């Protein structure tokens, strides 16, 4: 059994470490590129959303390298993501690739036993003992959490940095080093080291950088290929950035949902504009926008793939929030277009707009 999984930002790093540690055979699909997208669009329904297409590309590129089992998280979702696995399995079957799909859904929905048996299916070829497996699984979640912690710190501190580009460089260094570690304990110590190192990186707190929050659909926020590396672009401009949604958030949210203790801050914030769930991450988007406004961010950018229903609903509400609170929000709709020029212009102009509002002058170069 050779496992593969779709790309989702940097999550392939902890997954790689996890499988290494468990001793399970796996294939990391080649990093997303235009080739991936091309293969993906070839085999996907035309009007499908962008993440589906990129994921299809990932699968096929991995299959070519020998993968025979796909692990995917599911959401039983009220948005298209909930049906991804079924449709993808169907398409791959029609193409003559008969693979195993292991879809990890929330235990609350499919039952604890079913969830356990699915996890067992993944780890059954591991040479580790059963207690070891659970311990390693727990540690790998810590790796994810720490990695995102490092990233979030870098993004927020970026605007205040003294030496331009230092934070971004450290982040890339950290990820590269993580890829080289063979064991989970080493990965944890690398992350702890970088967590401290970032705090020691010089910052000038007197600066008043432009602070931008990224909202919207989780895949397009986290996967840099789908959003034209918007985070790097904003970091190069010297902005402080906050990503609303993350893998850690997603895991915590799914875990606490049965107890109704999930995302309390977001639910509370969105009360005035959207007091109920509309599917996907529409409510989270609205809530995050209001939180960002409360936290004195200068503006927000909403990202979503074309045709994403929950985000389209959120977009209309964001316009109202923007007007009510005098809080600039720009929406970028992402699709298969690989011409970056239009996006660059918008991102740059939006950054200019925020900078000029802050300074209250039109001229600034």
């Amino acid at each position, binding site marked *: 059994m050779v496992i593969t999984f779709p790309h989702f930002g940097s999550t392939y790093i902890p997954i790689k470490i996890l499988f290494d540690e468990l001793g399970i055979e796996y294939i990391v699909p*080649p990093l997303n*590129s235009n*080739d991936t997208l091309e293969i993906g669009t070839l085999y996907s329904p035309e009007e499908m959303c962008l993440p589906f297409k990129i994921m299809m590309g990932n699968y096929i590129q991995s299959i070519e390298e020998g993968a025979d089992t796909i692990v995917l998280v599911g959401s039983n979702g009220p948005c298209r993501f909930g049906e991804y696995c079924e449709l993808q399995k169907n398409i791959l079957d029609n193409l003559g690739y008969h693979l195993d799909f292991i879809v990890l859904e929330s235990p609350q929905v499919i039952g604890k036993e079913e969830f356990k048996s699915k996890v067992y299916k993944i780890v059954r070829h591991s040479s580790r003992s059963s207690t070891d497996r659970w311990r390693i699984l727990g540690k790998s979640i810590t790796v994810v959490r720490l990695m995102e912690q490092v990233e979030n710190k870098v993004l927020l501190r970026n605007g205040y940095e003294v030496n331009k580009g230092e934070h971004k460089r450290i982040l890339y260094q950290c990820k590269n080093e993580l890829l080289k570690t063979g064991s989970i304990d080493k990965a944890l110590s690398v992350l702890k080291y970088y967590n401290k190192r970032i705090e020691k990186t010089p910052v000038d707190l007197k600066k008043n950088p432009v602070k931008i929050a990224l909202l919207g659909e989780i895949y397009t926020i986290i996967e840099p290929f789908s959003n034209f590396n918007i985070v790097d672009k904003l970091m190069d401009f010297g902005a402080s950035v906050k990503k609303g949604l993350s893998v850690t958030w997603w895991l915590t949210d799914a875990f606490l949902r049965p107890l109704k203790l999930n995302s309390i801050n977001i639910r509370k914030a969105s009360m005035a504009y959207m007091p109920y769930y509309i599917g996907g991450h529409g409510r989270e988007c609205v809530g995050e926008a209001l939180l960002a406004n409360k936290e004195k961010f200068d503006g927000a950018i909403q990202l979503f793939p074309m045709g994403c229903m929950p985000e389209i609903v959120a977009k209309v509400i964001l316009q109202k929030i923007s007007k009510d609170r005098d809080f600039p929000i720009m929406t970028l*709709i992402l699709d298969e277009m690989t011409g970056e020029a239009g996006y660059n212009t918008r991102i740059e102009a939006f950054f200019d*707009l925020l900078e000029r509002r802050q300074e209250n002058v*039109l001229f600034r*170069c």
Partner: protein
Amino acid sequence: MYYLGVDVGSVSTNIVVMDNEMNVLDKLYLRTKGRPIKVIQEGLKRLRTKYDDKDISSVGTTGSGRAISGFLLGADVIKNEITAHAVAAVNTDKNVRTVIEIGGQDSKIILINNGIAIDFAMNTVCAAGTGSFLDRQAERLEIPIEDFGQYALRSKTPVRIAGRCAVFAESDMIHKQQLGYDVSDIICGLCHAMVRNYLNNVAKGKEIFPDILFQGGVAANVGIKKAFEKELGNELIVPKHYDVMGAVGAAMLAKRAISKKNTGTKFKGFMTAEAKIETRSFECSMCSNKCEVAALFDGENPIGCFGDKCGRWNTQEIKLNITMNKKFEKSFLHS
């Protein structure tokens, strides 16, 4: 002391020379025709007779070709066209609240309050409301684009044209033509369709207050201006240099940048007009992004690279590498 502003758009390339008081001394409106480098060189050739290298104290570039023109000229400021247009508009009319800009390939709306841009929008995937569509229809009807607006003004009963999509608008127009409607009525209908499309798409959800400035090449079209005024119930102001406002903004931004930095301009001089500039593009194989990189050469000297996500091709050593290492020559798609 003169300030140069260059706006390389999809349809036209505009170059302005401005003086200290920000008056436009010279303006060139050239057709890009898909060859930005040639057009800029052509423009420089024309200006060379009037100005000296040392007269130029700063250069700013904008428009979709701003990166390439920035490398070519040695620009002090390379800015997006939204900011450039907003800056130019505010300096033309202090009370401006809305800027409507319709160019060759894109149309934008910029909302301004107290001299600060507060919101903007740009057309996304549809070219129905832009200059090149008008160009094409004028060509089809064999009417010079300059007279297009006049035709619209002559109409008494404009026909309704579906303006949601350029392709459907055209078939709608042909259909109405075949039924024998007057050309001026059809053109007037088209102007109204374009304006409707603009207000429903680009300006969707935006509040439009006067003063409204109408900029970009399409502002020359009185038919469109009239249609806008009818829809909005407000007068549109077409500034004197409506067709080169992007370049004007770029020149202003460059002047400001230079006065702040005190380093002098990076302008490479009018001799650039004579340089043998060529681009070679290749697919970078350094990582999985596989960017399509275009390298700009002056003879055998690389001037700059663009298209790479990481920016590695713009460091000095790599530039040398491109020339020294023949290995890369092989991977050039075309030269």
